[in-house]
């Protein structure tokens, strides 16, 4: 039976056990003469039996599917032709992969060597055997666990408590999956970065001021070494993000204050969704808006007042990015400002404060932690943004603080390093991982610092 059918059967059986155990609990409870109070609701007994039915079976199914490919390919390798075996482990692996690939292909071509056809057949029979074995063992496990489950349920356990603790375990597992994934990503990036740092010194990387990752394909080419100084990229990221925040934070915050404190509820319910549309526009669209409208406009305006603005500039990209992240600031800040209790405003008004005094001195400080986190969110969005920068700020890794020049950012470089045909062990591609790691560390630091300041501020005032 296929995996899907097995899943379906387990599901149906669990539902059936739920219904059965729940019914049974009802009948028992209400058929009793002394009508004593039951520890748990009938539904809890239903869940308990359903858990008994589903959990062991699912555990078996998942572990089977995890282990199966390994075992099968082991068995395949043992029967690989001797000349392949002699060529070493990598060759065996390649041979296995080919067999797997051929077995999954729709049609097997006729002119395959006999040993390969045999291997394919062997693979297929192994798979069938595995399926049958799985189905048999699974039926046994389900039967056994149902039996145990029924005995358990009949002894009237504290089903409510058991179900509650299962829910807790389930939630912990969900949370750990998220955390483990993060750790996994960080580790993989870390290991690739370490490989990079074996080729290029860490210090050179974080203190170097020149970025030109073009490594030569032939060793006799000129400039074969490439240079990996990340500083221009980080200053570029910093510059563009700073411009974006300078645009987004005041505009977003003022709109939030207007929405939360001044706008009538009708105006608010129209304006807020309109603002949020800004966040829904694809960044590519912002990108060509920046490249085709904003950047030329800035250029010609700059020329008219005698400034030289390059056709791709940090300013154009930053301003457009700022507009894009306005809703991150405004929407979240609006929520936290609205959440400040009305009694605080009443107290302030009652003392004769005007509306703006109340906002500045009472509402804003009370909402500050939330506002800071909204700004943080916007900042990490700005730091991670790629598309607008590619299109409007250029690719030139220049070390400059002048917003009128073209710059590039970390994310843009990662993209250009990894797109196209690349070997995955050259310094050029590995540099992308090192950049990713640095970016991750930077945003993490930013978050930690902000959280720390917010907490200090809060302790002072709560």
């Amino acid at each position, binding site marked *: 039976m296929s995996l899907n059918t097995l899943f379906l059967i387990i599901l149906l059986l669990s539902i059936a056990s739920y219904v059965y155990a729940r019914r049974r609990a009802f009948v028992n409870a209400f058929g009793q003469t002394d009508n004593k109070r039951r520890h748990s609701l009938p539904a809890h007994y239903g869940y308990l039996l359903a858990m008994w039915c589903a959990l062991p079976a699912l555990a078996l199914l998942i572990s089977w599917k995890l282990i199966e490919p390994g075992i099968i390919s082991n068995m395949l390798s043992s029967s690989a032709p001797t000349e392949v075996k002699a060529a070493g482990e990598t060759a065996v692996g390649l041979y296995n992969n080919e067999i797997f690939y051929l077995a999954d292909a729709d049609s097997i071509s006729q002119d395959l060597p006999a040993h390969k056809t045999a291997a394919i057949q062997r693979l297929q029979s192994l798979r069938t055997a595995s399926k049958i074995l799985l189905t048999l063992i699974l039926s046994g496990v389900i039967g056994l666990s149902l039996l145990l489950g029924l005995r358990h349920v009949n002894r009237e356990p504290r089903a409510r408590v058991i179900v509650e603790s299962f829910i807790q375990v389930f939630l912990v597992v969900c949370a750990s999956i998220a955390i483990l994934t993060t750790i996994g990503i960080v580790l993989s990036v870390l290991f690739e970065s370490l490989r990079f740092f074996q080729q290029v010194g860490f210090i050179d990387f974080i203190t170097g001021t020149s970025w030109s990752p073009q490594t030569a394909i032939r060793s006799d080419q000129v400039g074969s070494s490439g240079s990996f100084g990340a500083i221009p990229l980080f200053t570029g990221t910093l510059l563009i993000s700073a411009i974006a925040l300078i645009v987004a934070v005041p505009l977003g915050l003022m709109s939030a204050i207007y929405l939360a404190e001044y706008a009538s509820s009708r105006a608010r319910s129209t304006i807020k969704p309109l603002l949020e549309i800004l966040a829904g526009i694809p960044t590519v669209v912002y990108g060509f808006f920046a490249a085709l409208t904003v950047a030329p406009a800035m250029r010609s305006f700059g020329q008219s007042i005698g400034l030289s603005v390059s056709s791709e500039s940090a300013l154009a990209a930053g301003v457009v990015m700022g507009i894009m992240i306005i809703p991150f600031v405004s929407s979240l800040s609006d929520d936290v400002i609205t959440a400040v209790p009305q009694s*605080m405003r009443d*107290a*302030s*008004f009652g*003392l*004769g404060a005007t509306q703006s005094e109340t906002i500045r001195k009472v509402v804003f400080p009370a909402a500050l932690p939330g506002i800071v986190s909204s700004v943080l969110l916007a900042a990490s969005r700005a730091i991670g943004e790629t598309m607008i920068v590619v299109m409007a700020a250029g690719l030139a890794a220049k070390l400059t603080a002048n917003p009128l020049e073209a710059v590039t950012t970390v994310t843009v470089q990662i993209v250009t390093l990894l797109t196209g045909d690349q070997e995955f062990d050259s310094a050029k591609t590995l540099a992308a991982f090192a950049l990713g790691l640095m970016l991750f560390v930077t945003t993490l630091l930013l978050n930690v610092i902000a959280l720390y300041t917010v907490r200090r501020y809060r302790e002072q*005032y709560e």
Partner: protein
Amino acid sequence: MSTSTTLNDIIPGSPAIQESTKVDDVTAMLDSIEGTVGTTRVENPKMEMREVDVFYADKQAIYDVDLDVARNEVIAMIGPSGCGKSTFLRCLNRMNDTIPICRVTGSITLDGVDINTREQDPVLLRARVGMVFQKPNPFAKSIFDNVAYGPRIHGLAANRAELDEIVISSLKRAGLYDEVKSRLDAPGTSLSGGQQQRLCIARTIAVNPEVILMDEPCSALDPIATARIEELIDELRENYAIAIVTHSMQQAARVSQRTAYFHLGKLVEVGKTNDIFTNPQHDLTENYITGRFG
């Protein structure tokens, strides 16, 4: 309070608040209340209200109320829940302005000057007519900053020394100074409920108002904290006119000189506290204060 011993015998605990809210019932009862029993006016009043109506959108919450607040007196407003006491109180410093759907008509004067005209600035008015709310609502600032908030926004202190002086004397008058003098920079929210409410009173008197409005200032407090605040109200009467809303009949009897009984948005009866509690004229008043409301 000399009246309290006798009054406690008459009033059996707090009033039973059982509203009969069938629609025809309400209109019938409303119609049965005609004018106000007792004298609504006083000599040389601090505040005068004439023909005050209040609407929330289309719904009328206060019907044609006349009432004076005298100088150096505490006037208590009592009545069943939802009868409009808070609404009426909030008219006196235009706090109802902060509710967009709320509309107030009629005339309300402070020292003979109408407070609802365009020229009258609600900001200045609220500095003269302070308010203490039902739930203690200190700002999430230090104790000092809580009290200094009003003086700062009104520019009452020329320098830090004057500000210190105002804050300390307000805390003293609110009877809180001794408890907090060693930790003026601790957050106001770290105080106990009763202390918080006294902090709110200190904050209100720090702007040196002429009238203080209190909306059930003790409803979140225990009897001991309540007693302290009642003492405080009695002392404050020397310098301020005070209007207090309360659900506790004992409290009205203990702290007020005059009492006004509201019912379904109408002012049913007003008079000397002693008279109202010992010899109510209107049946509704009598029912309410004897706990036989219905």
